[in-house]
């Protein structure tokens, strides 16, 4: 597309490498502008105590990483997230299966699944605090409840789009229910389960941290809360920075993994 535009203007298309360099340069300029604005806000608009500059925050991040705190608390949070997604899948797949195959259950779960998407995250956090107190159950249940509707909706959509001729053919060739389940249903559903996990990942990760802010004794959310209670803006920002970096990296890993695992499928089905 870019080539067409360039040819029209009578300009020779620059080489791929040159364009990549230009792209990278602009991105670097973008980050530089971001940090410059931050530094300006820190030293001119506010003061370094109220809004520490990028250098101070990077130093704080470095000390969090080198002291081993980062690994410890990210591990704690990640463990809760994985367990939460485990329960979310365990609940969401059967519900999605019912919704995708039976009219009654589709009507039954229609409203709860729709409503679940607009419930504010603070609800899960404070209810978990009241029901479970301070512990690991709260964040796990919050992640499970957040991800479950996404997984259920995706599974039910996947089942509705299932190739019925495949099932008919399996029947015609005398395949039993078990074979149909193993070779048709499960391979069809898995990408949709994964898409549900990926779609709800950002939301679940945020609510997990939020639940830890309210009631936990370890994890990123807990550390953010502690920094807040110590009035340490620099530590709040440092933990936020690590949180954001980690989240963006994990999301990228999930997308890559999804592409790799389901590369045998046509592209539009997982989108």
């Amino acid at each position: 597309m870019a080539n067409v535009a360039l040819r029209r203007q009578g300009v020779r298309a620059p080489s791929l490498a040159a364009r990549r360099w230009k792209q990278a340069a602009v991105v670097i300029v973008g980050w530089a502008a971001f940090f410059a604005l931050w530094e300006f806000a820190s030293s001119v608009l506010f003061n370094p105590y109220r809004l520490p500059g990028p250098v101070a925050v990077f130093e704080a991040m470095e000390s969090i990483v080198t002291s081993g705190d980062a690994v410890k608390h990210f591990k704690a949070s990640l463990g809760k997230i994985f367990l939460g997604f485990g329960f979310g899948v365990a609940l969401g797949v059967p519900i999605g299966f019912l919704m995708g195959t039976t009219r009654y259950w589709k009507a039954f779960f229609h409203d709860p699944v729709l409503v679940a998407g607009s419930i504010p995250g603070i609800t899960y956090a404070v209810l978990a605090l009241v029901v479970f107190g301070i512990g690991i159950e709260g964040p796990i249940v919050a992640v499970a409840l957040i991800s479950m509707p996404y997984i259920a909706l995706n599974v039910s959509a996947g089942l509705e789009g299932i190739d019925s001729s495949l099932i008919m053919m399996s029947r015609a060739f005398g395949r039993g229910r078990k074979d149909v389940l193993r070779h048709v249903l499960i391979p069809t559903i898995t990408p949709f389960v994964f898409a549900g996990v990926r779609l709800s990942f950002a939301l679940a990760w945020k609510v997990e941290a939020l639940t830890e802010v309210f009631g936990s004794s370890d994890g990123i959310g807990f550390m953010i809360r502690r920094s807040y209670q110590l009035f340490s803006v620099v530590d709040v920002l440092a933990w936020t920075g690590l949180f954001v970096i980690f989240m963006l990296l994990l999301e990228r890993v999930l997308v890559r993994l999804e592409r790799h695992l389901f590369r045998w499928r046509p592209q539009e089905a997982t989108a």
Partner: protein
Amino acid sequence: MSTGAAARIEPGARPRRDTGLPRRLLDAVLSNTGARITSYLVFVLGWQILGGLYERVPGPVEVVQFLADEIGRGGVWDAFQVTLERFFAGVAIAFVAGVVIGLLMGMWPLARALLKDTTMVGLAIPAIIWALLTALWFGFSWKAPVLTVALTATPFVAINVTQGVQGTPRDLIRMSKAFGVSTHRRVRELVLPFIMDYVFTGLRFGIILGWNGVLLSEWFASTEGVGWRTRYWYDANNFDGFVAWIFLFVAFIVVFDRLVLSPIQRRVFRWRTTVAMR
């Protein structure tokens, strides 16, 4: 022998459908509406059971009773008024900022390269961070909740507007450029109508996440409003009041989404599908 005789009258005919009361009742229960009503009943029953299991969780009856008292005291309306003012001020800021940033990023590759990563970081920052930071910056003032809403919602509006602009039909843009249509007119008459449903999708996301933000901010740094009121009952160890307020703020956003946001989005979407079909 009358029953046997009745069965023998038309041996070839299929048995008539039983239209007695039990059958009709079963049909009603198994209908779509019946299923939906059943799901609400199951929810209330589950809540009741949860209330019985955990002594700190009040059942639906206690909560409704408390709500009646609280409305009688007049605390509900005042709190919602304060919170809604802050909330909509924040949403308005996010809407304007998000549309401007989104238009810039969508129309100008340089702006996209400059701002994309910052927007991605903004998307990844949870509302609680803004709530805590604004609390540290501004203390107990209206600035904290308004800014929390604005900062939480802006990236969602911006990214959706960007996608909308990038999805606009290239041919039409190129043609309008070839015929010398001014940028101003091109934005107003071509880009804006097309991206409307993207704007609404972004705004809807922003509103739902912003509501969470305003509640969090009021929980940590306010002496009035819905979030503060919820915390007030929590601190007072009054779990009837606490759960009643949670019920109120969840009900508010669910009803607002169902009655206001979804219909608007559906209307905008209907316009787009008709265009696509032509």
